[in-house]
Each structure stands twice: as C-alpha cells, then as structure tokens.
C-alpha cells in the first residue's frame, strides 16, 4: 500500500509540472534500447598469507589487497509503460572487469606484483522507471532495479552468483516521434549507483558500491 502511494505522488508531481514544459513526443508503449556500459569497481580489503609462530602468533609470508576494476561491456533495457509516466523494466548487461590482487611485502623478497584475471560479469535486473516532465525532446527519468548477477572465470570453469541493485536516473532524447521496426528512436543515457554482493569470492568482504553509466540507442517495437 505504501509503495502505491509513493508512486502516485511521484506521478502526480510529474503530471503537475508537465504543464510548464513542452509537450513531449508520444512515448511508445514498449521501448527497447541497447548500448554500451561501464560498471565501476572497488576495493575489497586485504588479506595476508600467514604462518603460525611457536607462540601462536602470526608470521606474514606476504600481503595481498584485493579489488575489482571497472568493467566495460554492453547493456540492454526493455521498458513496458504501465502508466503515463511509469514503466516496468527488465534489463541485462555483460561487462568484463578484472579482479586484482596486489601482492606486497614478501618475506623472501619476491618482487611485488598485481595478479589479475579478467572475468565476465552478467547482470539481469527488474525495476521501475518513472519519467518526469519532458523538456523539448529531453525526458528525465528515475530508475530503481534489483536483480541477479553471475561472475564467470576467464577459463569458464567457475561461476558464482550474487545479488545486485541499482538506483539512479537519466535522460532520454527522442530524435524522431515515430520509427519503423527496429529503427533508432532516440538515445538514452543512464547514471546510477550500484550495490552488489556475492559472486566470485575474492575476499571476506564481497559487497561493492560503485557507479555505473550507460548510453544506448532506443529502438521502438
């Protein structure tokens, strides 16, 4: 019940302000877009390779600190409008981040290095998109989504799943009001904050909060 009220308020505000703006191009009921994306990385903390001393203490053989790099890849959204300003959305993206382990302080003086592996990261999300008043051909929107992620090792022998959530917004730019089957309808640019947890375990900590951006061509069904 609460969520229904919240959606109504947002939609009401949007409708109320739209009178001040230009009439937006007619929104199709179904939008599909595909494009490129970048999902940020982050630090996962450090862990040491240790031996046990005769007193039960710790003897460090070498130290490591783990991180994810940003990953670039492709993204796609499927939006189905369920109200004048509200659409439900399914989205998926595939990026190729690196996992990194920076190795330092080897007891025997081995040269420090950063060991890496480039993975595949798949995400599938379901969410809600709320569009605001259009300004000419520009339509801002807010978006929230939650979903599933899978990390697949570079040799395709190990995968692990996790969860992911996005909160952000963006702009749509409609450069034509009508388009034929699978012809560009416009552009969509997104920026969001992503929280993800699980997936391939590189450290005790597996939760990362990082930004994501994407730009995609909107295709009309």
């Amino acid at each position, binding site marked *: 019940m609460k969520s229904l009220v919240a959606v109504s308020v947002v939609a009401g505000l949007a409708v109320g302000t739209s009178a001040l703006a230009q009439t937006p191009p007619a929104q199709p009921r179904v939008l599909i877009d595909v494009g490129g994306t970048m999902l940020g990385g982050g630090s996962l903390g450090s862990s040491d390779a240790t031996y046990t001393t005769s007193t039960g203490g710790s003897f460090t053989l070498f130290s490591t600190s783990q991180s994810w790099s940003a990953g670039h890849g492709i993204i796609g959204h499927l939006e189905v409008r369920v109200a004048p300003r509200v659409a439900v959305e399914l989205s998926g993206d595939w990026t190729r981040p690196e996992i990194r382990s920076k190795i330092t302080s080897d007891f025997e003086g*081995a040269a420090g290095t950063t060991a890496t592996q480039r993975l595949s990261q798949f995400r599938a999300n379901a969410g809600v998109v709320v569009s605001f008043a259009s300004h000419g051909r520009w339509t801002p929107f807010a978006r929230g989504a939650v979903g599933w992620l899978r990390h697949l090792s570079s040799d395709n*022998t190990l995968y692990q799943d996790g969860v992911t959530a996005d909160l952000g917004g963006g702009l749509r730019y409609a450069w034509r009001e009508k388009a034929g089957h699978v012809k560009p309808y416009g552009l969509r640019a997104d920026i969001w904050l992503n929280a993800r947890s699980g997936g391939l375990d590189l450290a005790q900590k597996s939760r990362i909060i990082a930004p994501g951006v994407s730009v995609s061509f909107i295709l009309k069904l």
Partner: protein
Amino acid sequence: MSVPQPARAIARLIAAMVVAAPVMTSAYLTLGTSANGRSVPTRWTSAIKYFVTNRSVDGVTAAQLQAVVTQSFGTWTAVPTATMSATFTGFTNAEPVRDDGVTVIGFQSHPELERTLGVTTFTLDRTTGALVEADIFLNSLFDWSTAVNGETNRFDVQSVITHELGHLLGLGHSLLGETEIRPTGGRRVLGKSSVMFPIAYAVGTTQDRVLFDDDKAALSVTYPTPQFLQNTGSVSGRVTLDGVGIFGAHVVAFNTKTQELVGGFSLNAKGEFTIDGLTPGIYVLRVEPLDDADVSSFFEGDAKVELGFKTTFHSKLVTVPSGGFGESVEIPVTRK
C-alpha cells in the same frame, strides 16, 4: 634405510621429525612408491590397528603416551573430508621399528640421533603401495611432556606424535614454513602452516597439536570422501626457467578469501605440478626454491632439484573449480 623382503615385495621407508635441523619439507607431499612402472600412493587400505609400548620415560608413563596417541589419531580422523580409522589394540613389549607386521608406537633411546625427535618407519607392499605396518618411536634422548599446556624445557608429545602419525598415514613433509639458521647450527622455525613441516617448534610449544589446511588437504587427497572429490578442486601447471621445466620448485596456492595455504612441488623434468584438495575459488600462486631445508629430506638423493631461481608470484589469479581443474598455468621464474 630399507629392509627389502623380495618374497612379499615389501620395502621399508623412514621419515623423521627433527629439532633445529633441516630435514624434509614439502607442502604437501604424500608418500608414494613405484609399482610395475607406475607411481602409486602409499596408504592404508584397511583400518589401522596399533599397539603402544609398555614403557615409561621420565615425565611420561605408557598410559599417558597411549592417551596422547589416541587423542592425536582423533585429530586426524576428525578431518571431515577424509575417511580412515585407527584402533588401539593394547600395550606391548615389542619394539617400534621392527619389521614384525605389528604397528607399534613408543619411546626408544637413540643417542646417535641427536637432532631427531621422532621417526616413523613403514613396511609396504610395493606392488600396491598398501601399508602393511608402520612404527613410530619418540627419541627418549629428549625430555618429554604430556601436560595440557606444555611444559617449559620439554617437548610436547602430542605435537610430535601428531606429526609422526601424519607420516604413518602416508603423508610426507610439508614446506609451508620459514626458518632461520641458528648461530649454533641447525634451524629455528619462524612460522609454519603445517603440522607436517619437518622442523619442530622449540621446547614447551604445543602449536603442532592442531592441523592446518595443508595437512587436511594432504590427508583428504590420500583418503578422500566422495564429497571431498566433488567439492574441492585442483590447480596444475608448469614452472619454467629459461623456458625449460624445473624439478622441485615449491608452489604455494593462497586463497585470498579464506587465507587457506596449500602447496605442492613440480615433480618432473617438465616442471609440472598439481595441487589437489583446494576450496573452489580464486588463488594467488607463489613459487620458491626449496632452500629452507635439506633437499634430500624431500627427494631421492639423485634428484636434480633446481634451487637457483628467485621466489616469484604468478602474474595471473588462478581459478579452482569444484571437482576439477582450472586452466593450466605456466609460471616462468628467473635466475638468482
């Protein structure tokens, strides 16, 4: 030391744990033998039945020794990913280290072994690798203790027995440890991550009563449960110097999440190594020469172990999947 008995194709092997002297290490090596031209692991194929010598030494009675042996066997048999069992049969006046078909554990005086705390000897069937008998003696030249928290100036029976029982079960030494040379000779352990590291902690220490990941992996590879084979994985590859494989390089796999340390060696002229029994995940690989101990403690005297290279980390993080191998890796090392 071997006492071959051709009629039964039986051989006798020996493994020792020492104090302050370089002996065997590996992370980990399981014992094996060559049968009909192929390598077979040395292991028990039936439940172990053992006796304890009915002999006390200063500070330790036969009953106390038996209680500690039972406790140490329990430490090994409690590893959930391995399946084997051992039963105390009774006290005996028989000596350990006698090829009599009876597994005996007890104290013996060996003044000539002034750096050796304990020794395990095996009698095995060379056609199958099956252990027929194994004896352990603790050298009564030293002062021993079974005190719960250890005892100053005495070696802990449970720690050393746990190590020797590892040998009795078919495990070799592990190189997961660092030592420094003592000014007076021998080595001092700075730290280790395996009960099967060959050099003991100093007197009064009880740290070797508890198994490490390396020990559990070695035992589980030797006596695996079906779940262990399904739920763990392996990493394999080659260590090369100037493009050529090298023998005897020590490879350590470090799980950056669990901090598990398990090791192995390149065991042929191609430099090939395999480390089994790893928790699935992502690993850092480190290669080092076998320079913390006497090479002959690990390999046959004529083995050409390469020592002249720098400790090196593999530039890639490696993947270990469940029940199998990840991508094979090649780790090039450079000369010292």
